[in-house]
């Protein structure tokens, strides 16, 4: 157990800046997940902590000890690799005990540590097998076991679940959560999968182009994304982004006009009022509505923000239904579908079919507003009411 500090870390590859000035404090015992699209620098950051990449400038320390120039194996970190990186010529037992053996531990101590790790991961009966005869999930367990055996100060995970199938992945997510609770260890986890970030993290670090976009607890980031990038990155399906223009601003509402919308969207202002500085009639903004931020089109009081559209795709998830709506004049941009369909999430079963006419309405109380630079200017009234209100 140890805390990790990163101060002003910069990593250049020639003229390419992989990491530009990242600072981060990870308190002891925290499970930090670093997410971002590919090329955002998350893996480089993790490999820098491990010592597999040299850093251009800055400082990485564990419990206050500067490890920036220390050899990888003296840093007190263990890493779990995406492709498991198990030694194919060694048995599971040898794989897990290798670090201790190299470090000069006695046979008894190595065996004790291996048994303990195997017990935690429930792979005691796999110890004499070679990695080749293990399934993907078992291999990943062994890779994690190899890290546990070393009792490191900090665990590093580099997209460890991306090679597993969906069912196994969600199982391993639970397993890793349990492991973190059981070991109480400091863990840094890199993934491009927002689900993994949302489900496992104590705190999420969203990276973009080598800088930290936002840091916070999963729901904090989900409900209060500082930027449109974070808003779009967390949550699946993505938040719907619609172009709009400011009509007027009064004391407690922002009135917006959007092409294809009958009435003006009256977005209530509660949070971050001063973020509207410089905004005036005619300013272009972007409205963000999560898939759960829609109500039925005929609900009293919401009719002005009604969208009449055609169902393009229906995804029945069992209890819930996801709809992709061709909103006619209302188009989502930067979305999962090229056609600009609106993603709509209903927490009930719907018997919708392709091509069917459907009316929904934006819930202005669930809308985010972003300025042209991508900064969030308006947060919804109470984001956690969204799930309840979406039914």
């Amino acid at each position, binding site marked *: 157990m140890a805390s990790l500090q990163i101060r002003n870390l910069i990593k250049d590859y020639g003229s390419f800046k992989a990491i530009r000035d990242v600072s981060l404090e990870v308190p002891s015992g925290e499970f930090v997940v670093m997410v971002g699209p590919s090329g955002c620098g998350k893996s480089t950051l993790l490999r820098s902590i*491990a010592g*597999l990449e040299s850093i251009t400038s800055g400082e990485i320390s564990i419990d206050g000890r500067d490890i920036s120039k220390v050899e990888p*194996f003296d840093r007190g970190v263990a890493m779990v690799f995406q*492709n498991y*990186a198990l030694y194919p010529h060694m048995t599971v037992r040898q794989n897990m005990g290798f670090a201790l053996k*190299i*470090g000069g531990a006695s046979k008894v101590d190595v065996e004790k540590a291996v048994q303990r790790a195997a017990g935690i991961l429930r792979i005691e009966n796999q110890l004499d097998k070679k990695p080749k005869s293990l399934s993907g999930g078992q291999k990943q367990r062994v890779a994690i076991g190899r890290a546990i055996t070393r009792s490191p100060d900090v665990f590093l995970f580099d997209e460890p679940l991306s090679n597993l199938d969906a069912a196994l992945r969600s199982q391993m997510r639970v397993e890793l959560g349990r492991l973190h609770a059981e070991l109480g260890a400091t863990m840094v986890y890199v993934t491009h999968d927002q689900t993994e970030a949302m489900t496992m993290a104590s705190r999420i670090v969203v990276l973009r182009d080598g800088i930290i976009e936002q840091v916070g607890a999963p729901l904090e980031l989900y409900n209060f994304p500082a930027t449109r990038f974070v808003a779009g990155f967390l949550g699946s399906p993505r938040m719907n982004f619609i172009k709009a223009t400011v009509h007027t601003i009064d004391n407690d509402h922002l009135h917006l006009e959007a092409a294809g919308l009958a009435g003006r969207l009256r977005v209530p202002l509660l949070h971050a009022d001063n973020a509207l500085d410089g905004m005036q009639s005619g300013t272009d903004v972007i409205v963000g509505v999560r898939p759960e931020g829609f109500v039925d089109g005929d609900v009293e009081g919401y009719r002005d923000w009604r969208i009449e559209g055609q169902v393009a795709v229906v995804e029945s998830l069992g209890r819930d239904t996801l709809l992709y709506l061709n909103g006619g004049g209302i188009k989502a941009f930067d979305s999962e579908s090229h056609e600009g369909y609106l993603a709509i999430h209903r927490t009930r079963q719907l018997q919708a079919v392709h091509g069917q006419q459907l009316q929904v309405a934006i819930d202005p109380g669930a809308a985010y507003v972003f300025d042209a630079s991508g900064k969030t200017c308006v947060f919804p009234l109470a984001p956690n009411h969204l799930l309840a209100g979406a039914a």
Partner: protein
Amino acid sequence: MGSRFRWVQVLLYGFVSLWSLFVLLPTAWMVIGAFKTKREFFLDPLGMPASFDFDAFERAWGTGVGGFLLNSMFVTALSVLVIVVVSAMAAYVLARTDNRWMRLVYLVIVAGFAVPVQAVIIPLFQMVSGAGMLNSLFAIVLPYAAYGIPFTIILFYAFFLDFPRELEEAALLDGCRPVKTFFHIVLPLMGPAVASAAIFQAVFIWNEFLLALLMLTKPAVKTLTVGILQLGGEFTSDWAAIMAGLSIAVLPILTVFILAQKYFVRSLAGLGK
């Protein structure tokens, strides 16, 4: 599948069959000849022997083929060992370095692969002679190693470029410095590459004639290829004994080759990467 494709197949198989016969018939003739009596050999050169007895083998063995065999085995084993160990370590460093000068070193080694042994045979002889190593087995082990290393480095270099880097990174985190990583992780996983290189070099060294003829003049140090030549001088009329000696020379390497031909093919296929 069209009939045209089938015709191409027939043609190809026909060609390969003819080629195989072209290679195998003399070999078969050699083995069969070794079982003939001297009389049979001259009366019916293409016929089968009346009985399969090992007299000719005994005569050949009696002239010291056993010694030549041991010399060849020693030379081949030692040369291959030196080639594999040196090449593996050199190729690993060359494949993992970022140093620009090392890339130049690699180019020089590749260039060394292109120098024909005949071109440098006189200076080579003088060097070996000057070192006082003539008529010692090291007189050919060292040049063989020197000639085998460039090719083997190229082979291993390609292997290391494909070697999963994560394994080395995992070893680094587990506490291995590069030397330990090489011996604990990389070397144990080099099996197929080593087998390819070893069989390729073994066949070449076992059959090498020119250098052995120049450097080894005393019977006690001769290898099989030059030893058999001596056999031809002694038994001008005993062709059966010569055939028996040749069979003894070919048999070990042929056996090894057949057992390991999979790796041999792979080593050549690996060059196309």
